[in-house]
């Protein structure tokens, strides 16, 4: 099995559901060490993506680029350009075929995460979404198949997300807090974990 267009759409629908359902949680995390908008921003962005679904291109590469454009146009803040870049880069490396195999999926996640790092210049340990995404990427083994690869990635992302709690933030708005950022889970690492968790859940059969 592989990830076809329908699976991608299912993922996008699930993201709209997940970010709406967790809008309050993300905002609460962002209240503690940021500015209380991360939940609303993610919800707004992925509801816009969901609304765009009927108009999305057929091919998965262009489809991801269209998702990127919508996120960049509707999210704003730090996470808008970062998640936008994720989908832009993912779309750019997407092979022109109707369904993606595990190697393709790894390639697009790698390109996406590298894009976020290139844009935001955060290193692991800076207490950002990168702390969920980098270990997730490292845990991806395409030989295991899409489902197992993403399950491992989601678990690694969860661990990375939790590992942000004791960190001192060095990038983004939380960095202004210095040592006072310790003890709080990073909102962006949390939304990043949800991104991968949703893929793992939706692409179980792939």
């Amino acid at each position, binding site marked *: 099995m592989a990830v076809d267009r329908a699976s991608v759409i299912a993922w996008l629908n699930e993201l709209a559901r997940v970010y709406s359902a967790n809008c309050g949680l993300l*905002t609460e995390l962002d*209240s503690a*060490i*940021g*500015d*209380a*908008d991360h*939940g*609303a*921003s993610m919800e*707004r962005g992925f509801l816009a993506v969901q609304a765009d679904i009927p108009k999305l291109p057929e091919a998965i590469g262009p489809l991801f680029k269209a998702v990127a454009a919508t996120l*960049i*146009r*509707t*999210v*704003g*803040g*730090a*996470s*808008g*350009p*970062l998640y936008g870049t994720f989908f832009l880069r993912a779309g750019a490396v997407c092979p022109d075929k109707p369904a993606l195999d595990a190697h393709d999926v790894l390639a697009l996640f790698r390109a996406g995460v590298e894009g976020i790092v290139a*844009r*935001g210049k955060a290193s692991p340990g800076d207490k950002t979404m990168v702390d969920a995404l980098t270990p997730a990427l490292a845990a991806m083994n395409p030989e295991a198949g899409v489902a197992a690869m993403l399950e491992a990635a989601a678990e690694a992302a969860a661990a990375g997300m939790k590992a942000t709690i004791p960190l001192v*933030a*060095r*990038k*983004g*708005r939380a*960095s*202004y*807090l*210095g040592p*006072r950022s310790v003890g709080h889970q990073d909102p962006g690492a949390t939304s990043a974990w949800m991104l991968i968790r949703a893929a793992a859940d939706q692409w179980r059969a792939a």
Partner: protein
Amino acid sequence: MKKLINNPQDVVRESLEGLALAHPDLVRVSFNPVYVVRRDAPVRGKVGVVSGGGSGHEPMHGGYVGRGMLDAAVPGAVFTSPTPDQIEAATRDADGGAGVLHIIKNYTGDILNFEMAAELCQMQGIDTEAVVINDDVAVENSLYTAGRRGVGATVLAEKICGAAAERGMPLKELAALCRRVNENSRSMGMALTSCTVPAAGKPTFTLGDDEMEMGIGIHGEPGRERMPVEGAREIVARMTEAILADLRLPSGHSAIAVVNGLGGTPLLELYLLYRELQRLLEARGVVIARRLVGNYITSLEMAGCSITLLHADEEALDLWDDPVVTPGLRWGA
């Protein structure tokens, strides 16, 4: 949460509609994408001055659009930087052929979105220069942070660069002037109460009945230190000392000062704070040559204040006095 709004999601749009209805002689508002632009933009041959950022800081930035200040302002959702397409469209509308200055407050989101917008503008042959404002001494400016935040100096930069652009200063010079204003400015803020982001529905933080947050950010980001409330004199001294520890402002020199309310502080108190500030600076031999006392860069309904000082040379004072005709700042016309 009690607010004078309809739906949390509609706050920014409906408020901008109000701005457009209230000041048809000064500004136009575009809604798709969202930005505020001078009634008569683009002004042929003049460098455009554009700023933007999350909403919730009114009158900044939409209230500073008009002759002698901004050509366009780009408001995002509450406390959320605007998006590249908005910034690009505003920049295009503000470009009179002489290029456009982007005045950006130093937040990751603002930087990233303005960067992407500048790339889009370049692709269309619009010349842009970006200046990042980072005047907040509450935040350490170290390699290990996103750097100091941009706060009150933004208002000063918008006024002074707006005047210089009106006089015909070319883009590169204008950007250099903006950088000088930023380098010579420092700010510090404090809060007595939290703000409430409409979409969040509850206060971003809570302070005890005898606590204040020193070094608060204008998005309700926690500050340097939570501490027992003090009197106005001690608070002003604390903020001013923090500023002067980082800003060369020798005796005999002049400053432009902003004593700013964060949205929930009565003017009665702001003038009282101004008294404390002027007395303190006078004792150091510093002359406040010009000043603003009021709500200029706010954080929704937060009770608290910030102080901004610009070490001002003759050029800055002269440009300061030029006419400005905007909803939020007006003199000389």
